[in-house]
């Protein structure tokens, strides 16, 4: 059993996403610690990819900044190992299939285990293809997080039944990025999810304000925020940590007492 369920033990969860190496790993370390100290329940660490097809312009920008700065998968594993000395909350990687595949799936999962990562989210890996990575992930105790989308429809039950760690429910059509409104009938989707699994379900894509986070967490087990945090990094660069800390605190407060 993974540590991921601990993230959902203290009320509804708040889950920030941070791209490793944007703009450098020293900043990422400060930002992760600031998020953890201010109430983040689980952290998604992005391993940058040159062509992130599920991302909007904000996270694409973070990927480019990190890769331009010379970040690599090996540097990220070394970084996480260091980070794990004091950051104890559950953490998962978020990256694309080719990053894992080209590193060597078995070798990648072994490294995840060694650095005490709890799971991995791969947005270009649908249910039908999870066999690509599932055996190696299982062998090293890494949860392969499933995504469910507004278009999943009859696929929801099938995905939920085999889900591990938590379910990442995508709030809207399209790519990641801040949205002014979210119109999907998420309550109906989470209802089907709950009929099929006990594992928690958090909603992401398009969430930036405490009000949105509250609304999303009200119909699920937590809220995931990426682009709004990356925007703080875009704006404040190497001095972003206190701003991210403050933002995380306000978001956690919005969701925790639902």
């Amino acid at each position, binding site marked *: 059993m993974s540590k991921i369920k601990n993230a959902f033990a203290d009320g509804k969860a708040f889950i920030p996403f941070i791209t490793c190496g944007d703009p450098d790993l020293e900043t990422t370390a400060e930002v992760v610690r600031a998020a953890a100290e201010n109430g983040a329940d689980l952290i998604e660490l992005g391993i940058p990819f040159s*062509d992130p097809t*599920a991302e909007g312009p904000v996270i694409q920008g973070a990927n480019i900044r990190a890769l331009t700065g010379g970040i690599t998968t090996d540097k990220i594993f070394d970084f996480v190992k260091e980070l794990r000395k004091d950051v104890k909350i559950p953490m998962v990687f978020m990256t694309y299939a080719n990053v894992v595949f*080209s590193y060597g799936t078995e070798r990648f999962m072994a490294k995840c285990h060694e650095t005490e990562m709890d799971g991995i989210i791969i947005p270009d*890996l649908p249910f039908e293809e999870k*066999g*690509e990575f599932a055996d190696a992930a299982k062998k090293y105790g890494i949860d392969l997080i499933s995504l469910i*989308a507004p278009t*999943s429809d009859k696929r929801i039950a099938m995905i939920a039944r085999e889900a591990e760690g938590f379910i990442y429910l995508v709030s809207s*059509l*399209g790519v990641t990025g801040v949205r002014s409104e979210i119109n999907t009938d998420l309550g109906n989707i989470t209802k089907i999810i709950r009929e099929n699994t006990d594992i928690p379900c958090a909603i992401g894509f398009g969430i930036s304000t405490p009000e949105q986070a509250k609304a999303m967490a009200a119909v699920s087990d937590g809220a995931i925020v990426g682009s709004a945090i990356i925007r703080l990094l875009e704006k404040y660069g190497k001095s972003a940590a206190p701003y991210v800390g403050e933002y995380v605190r306000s978001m956690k407060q919005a969701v925790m007492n639902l």
Partner: protein
Amino acid sequence: MESKGRFGIHGGQYIPETLMNAINELEEAYDHYKNDPEFNRELTQLLNEYAGRPSLLYFAEKMTKDLGGAKIYLKREDLNHTGSHKINNVLGQALLAKKMGKTRLIAETGAGQHGVATATAAALLDMECVVFMGREDTIRQALNVYRMRLLGADVIPVVTGTATLKDAVSEAMREWSSRIDNTHYCLGSVMGPHPFPTIVRDFQAVISRESRAQILEKEGRLPDAVIACVGGGSNAIGSFYHYIQDESVKLIGCEAAGRGIDTFETAATVNTGRIGIFHGMKSYFCQDEYGQIAPVYSISAGLDYPGVGPEHANLHDMGRAEYVPVTDEEAVNAFEYLSRVEGIIPAIESAHAVAYAMKLAPTMDKDKIIIITISGRGDKDCAAIARYRGEDIYE
């Protein structure tokens, strides 16, 4: 659940969950309509009456004599309406999309040939059309941008990444995931997630279906080699398909080597890449040791892509087809050669196939036969080639 659309170990459906139902819906619709007599009658009529099929199989007598070896035939896809083989696939997909109730087509384009073909089909079938094109390519192929706009399409310059074909594909995928209900992504090559590699191959297979019958009629036997250029690989798979079972026919795909396969400025995927997962498929990709996709280069905007279709990857693995690198310089020489010797200006993409045939033909006996697919016409490339040769010409 089993992974679908495999060619050996390649292919599959590595796409976001948001797109899975749309992809499944496309597969179901295609499986239905591909055997529907009415659909096939309509498509054949469009191909024959609108696109100008069948395309000629032309005996290049002067080229044959000049090279002094195998007899050379040219499969003239350049004579199709819109000037390339791309129309074969686009008419099929646009008709399919219309039957599925879609009102809007989106497409990626490199050289602009697929974008022009999609804009053309959209105009004919009263559909909305948006084409994504790398900003670099909108500059290299400015005339095609104008043609698409003239045909009523919106052309969106893509500025992300290397601002070329791969980024146009990524952007089209992003757009599709936000407008699934009314939009069909009319993918232009035998790549991407299943069922695209199969759908596009089936629609392009008309090339070898025709050429096989034509060569049997003219020569009473099959060719010894079929040569085509390969970016994603749609004209090549179309040119190869009906010969795959005939082991005596050598199948040769010509990749864009750019400034050479020993340089970083290349797009020769099979020759320099390794297996990876990208743009919905497992196949060969140009990438670094950490799986970051490489910024590839070729003089040809249509071959300037870091991957290759999964069926080609499998033909390579099985040793059934051979993939050879052809440099910018060799392609430009062939572009000029075919223009001068046969009075046919080939697309710079197709010139890669001509270049390899120029090396191969003299090594073969005079009773051997080569078919080269001229996938498109070269009018669009004249200004760029003139600049390559140091002339100061702009469109």
